């Protein structure tokens, strides 16, 4: 199956693309997705957005599942065609 990780705001500039499409086996979890992306993201996102040792997004970064912000755990099972939105916090404006 394919999932799409879309990067918004500053993260898009850091990654250098609006999204990454990842091929995963059926029933793959969010943990498996992070492990697959880790080599690329730890290079591109830097420490403020990516925790190198834990291989996950830093707490200040928001990850949205079906637009429920913060809806992903390591064991969350992903679905084919799922879009995962990753974005920084807001500020006043």
């Amino acid at each position, binding site marked *: 199956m394919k999932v799409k990780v879309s990067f918004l705001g500053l993260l898009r500039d850091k990654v250098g693309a609006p999204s990454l499409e990842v091929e995963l086996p059926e029933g793959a979890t969010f943990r498996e997705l992070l492990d697959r992306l880790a080599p690329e993201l730890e290079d591109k996102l830097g420490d403020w957005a990516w925790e190198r040792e834990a291989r996950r997004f830093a707490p200040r970064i*928001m990850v*949205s599942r079906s*637009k*429920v912000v913060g809806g992903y755990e390591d064991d969350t099972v992903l679905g084919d065609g799922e879009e995962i939105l990753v974005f*920084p*916090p*807001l*500020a006043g*404006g």
Partner: protein
Amino acid sequence: MFGYMGTIARVDLTHGQVKYEPLDEEAARAFIGGAGYGTKIIYDEVPGDTDPLSPQNKVVFITGPLTGTSFPTTTRYEVCTKSPLTNMWLATSSAGWWARDFKLAGFDGLIVEGKAEKPVYLWMTDGKVEIRDASHLWGLDSDQTQEAIRNELGDKDIKVSCIGPAGEKQVRLASIMNDEQRAAGRGGAGAVMGSKNLKAVAVRGDRKVAVADEAGLREVARRVREAIKHHPVVSQFTPYGTASLLEHSWVSGDTPNMNWAKGEWREGCEKLNGRTMAETILVPHAGCHGCFIRCARWIKIDKGRFAMEGPGPEYETLCAFGTMLMNDNLEAVCWANDLANRLGVDTISTGSAIAFAMECYQRGIITREEAGCELTWGNVDAIIEMIDQIGNARGLGALLGQGVKRASAAIGKGSEDFAVHVKGMEVPYHDPRAYTSMVPVYATGTRGACHMHGAAFVMEQGAPRPDTGQPVGEIDRFSREGKAILAILAQDKASVVDSLTLCMICSDGMIFADIAEALQAVTGEPWDAARVGKAGERITTLQRLYDLKCGVTAADDRFPRRLLEAVPDGSHAGRVPDFEYMIQDYYRERGWDTNGVPKPEKLAELGLEWA
């Protein structure tokens, strides 16, 4: 006193007199300057029952101790008065270049009182104020007014703060404009100027601000620059402006759509956001004086009906004339922004008034004949027509220009339910149903619903508390718990920032300890984080006390019905904040009684026993 010029000018327009009064140093120590010092003046001199558009109201232009120094993003001024929109306290601020020249002309503040017989403008330079005829300027838009005064005085570097036609016609949404369409937008201060026949305040200055510790000030500035450079959000304001927020604010539901009835509009936000602007119509241009962030936009549209070059819209305006009206035409928003700024109306309140009217039209409460156009969602012709009507106080716009509270009261037919305001101030575009810390911020805002006076939602997303520098930890953005304290911290920080006078965006990189260090370096006074926090609380509380003098009660600390209804879509769908709990929690945390009145012991603690 270091950091201040030592003089407040007082102009009596009724008698054509100018006085020069010494800065009240005790007040400066307690209230800093800017909105804080200005609040003290309004509290002392404008009775609560004053008609805001009468000669008895006063309007104060004022800077702070950081303005005109080497500290970045401090070229700001506050305008304090009694608001004709909310009938209570108002401070509204603007950036650009004007504030530096005002202060370096030799003034900390300017108090304007009375009413001139005919239109006038003030010319302030080298420690003097001159009252000059402005009859020939009456009717000019805000850009034309600035140009005409520069030409008349023969100096292209003169800075002008002025009103457009909306202020002249005393439209309650009228703004005060300066430089490249920078706006002291909210609350109708432009109408107060118009009621006094005051068209503009022109300034030019080259004096110096005496600073106690220049090296110390530069060191704090260096640290703040560094913090902003690495700030996950504010660093985006350089390439994409505050409009960058639209790229992702739709995910959490922060950005309202369709008069707050629709929770999410991804497609619209993708067409309107700062990245899209940068990739299509943005051209390089200078930022505000002394700014390293440079969030201000400058756009160039080469062809088509919206062809133009000039200042571009920021986040709130993109919501006002974009998402709130279901208009995803970025070029049309730019055109609408330019029109609103030239006429001199607040883009936030104007957008909300049009959104309100569009919903009335949709429901059949307003007819095409009454509107003078097809007031359908996303209709750019209707949007432009309504801005013109509001700015010129004609047709339906004459009613909408009084704000949605008055308009809904006049229209009736249930329209009060979707007139989204607090105490008459249209709610800015950070949805409190998505980040509930904004519930007490908006409900108790001393100038009405305001994100500039309390951006608490940033702490819900990991920004440090200003008092401790530590994040608040895990917090549920929909919960009712712990939000009052975030609201209080954000409001009190904003009170200090508006008193310094410092850009709110730059202040995102500062906590109270940084502010104390900057204040101490400028003034030589012994400031620390605790004193900064206390000053912020004192200033917010005095503003509240003035509102109470104006007749505000706990019954006015309410939310519009629309914001207590859930949206059907978006990540905050189905969520309704527990308003009653949060408002009482807020009063308790503030040390106010259950009616929202500060207790005597709180006033004593803040040195406000006299108030």
